[in-house]
């Protein structure tokens, strides 16, 4: 009897292994067929930041449900870093005509791209309703939906809590290359460039990622900002723009002692933005200066 039970158990285990192997093979075949059809994995891109800004460690994504194969995710992920931002033009929920600045302003803007019918956006709408959206740096928060011809204002009025600034603008979705909703883009107002973008499961999560990305809460509310003379601020903005026009952002190697001539294609720099050429001191002269002291 014992021998019979042992044999039955062995046969059962063998059969179970066989079935598991068949299922695995079937899954592999399906996966390959999907790849052959040109299918892509429909999941939102994670929150990421521009080079030089510390990348957030926490995982983001998996919150969206409007990430279809035709949503252009690949295009958004492959987007050029430090992509220029755009000012917004659109309509409010009550037909108000809106023009909002995100470029060449002192504040950052947090653009939250949402939709009324997207299940992944529900959490975002609920959190917006609480009025407690602690974004790092005190950036201005704007919800951007598609235009009234693509999104129902009546439905949006139902889901959008009062006091939330909504701009209905399909052009903004196109300008920023938004792949789907929910999606968040952080615009650096002074440089006029995108400094963080991606998706997440909630505003709190994205807020946390932004706080990490901004680096140790340097701009967190409550932290006293350095008050500078207007001339200094304008000069800094001019210098930042000239550097950005030359393709130099935070973390660029040329800022850490590398020879700029090796790193920058000066033909790409507009003539008006070129900095005056300064002859590099010869190494021996430099040594001589240090050794000889005053001449």
């Amino acid at each position, binding site marked *: 009897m014992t021998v019979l039970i042992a044999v039955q158990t062995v046969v059962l285990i063998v059969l179970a292994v066989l079935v598991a192997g068949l299922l695995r093979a079937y899954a592999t075949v399906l996966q390959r067929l999907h790849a052959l059809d040109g299918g892509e994995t429909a999941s939102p891109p994670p929150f990421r930041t521009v080079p030089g800004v510390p990348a957030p460690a926490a995982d983001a994504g998996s919150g969206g449900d409007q990430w279809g194969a035709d949503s252009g995710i690949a295009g958004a992920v492959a987007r050029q870093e430090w992509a220029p931002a755009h000012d917004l033009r659109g309509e409010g929920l009550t037909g*108000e005509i809106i023009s909002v*600045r995100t470029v060449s302003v002192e504040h950052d803007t947090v653009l939250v791209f949402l939709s009324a019918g997207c299940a992944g956006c529900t959490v975002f709408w609920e959190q917006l309703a609480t009025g407690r959206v602690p974004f790092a740096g005190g950036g201005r928060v704007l919800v951007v939906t598609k235009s009234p011809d693509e999104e129902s204002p009546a439905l949006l009025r139902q889901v959008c809590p009062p006091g939330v600034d909504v701009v209905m603008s399909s052009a903004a979705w196109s300008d920023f290359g938004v792949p789907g909703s929910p999606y968040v883009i952080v615009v650096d107002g002074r440089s006029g460039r995108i400094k963080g973008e991606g998706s997440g499961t909630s505003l709190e999560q994205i807020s946390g990622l932004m706080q990490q990305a901004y680096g140790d809460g340097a701009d967190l509310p409550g932290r006293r900002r350095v008050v500078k003379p207007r001339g200094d601020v304008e000069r800094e903005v001019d210098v930042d723009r000239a550097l950005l026009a030359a393709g130099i952002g935070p973390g660029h190697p040329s800022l850490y002692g590398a020879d700029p001539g090796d790193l920058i294609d000066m033909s790409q720099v507009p003539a008006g933005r070129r900095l005056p050429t300064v002859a590099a001191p010869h190494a021996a002269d430099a040594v001589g200066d240090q050794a000889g002291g005053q001449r």
Partner: protein
Amino acid sequence: MTPPSISGHGFTVDLPAAWEGRIYRRNVPEIAFSPDSRARVATAEGATSGWLGENPGAVVHLANFPLPVDRGDYGSGAVETMGPSDVFLAILEFGQECLGTALYSSLGLPRVRAERFDPNGLQRRIAGQAGVQYFFTVQSRPLCLYVVLGSYRNAVPLAAKANKVLDRMKVNAA
């Protein structure tokens, strides 16, 4: 790159750098005023925007600072957030019954003068700020221009900023 502009309800403005704007016209009120309806509206979510019989005109808000979503026609809700270098500008359209009256007899879009600004010219006094109001008519539209400066001390440069915007504004017939 062409400067951003905003256009609607017969107003067009090419916005200077850092300026943004909003143009709207409130819905025609459908609730007749009565003590009961006022009490009902007061307890309901969201205040009413007028009473039956009112014919709301277009309102233009322009500012060189972020305009909040909840604003009164004369900028309440926005002016409280202004800094010393900020300017808020509102143009409000009034009904045709005002056309030809003495208050609106001035023709054409005015330009503001720094010496006209007064802390007492504000809808509600806010420390450091100053305001001014002009009434005029353009294209048979009776209009009011209300400008608030974030700093009375900087009235001259801030008034110049306001005039720069007014230079870029066109008003068409409604």
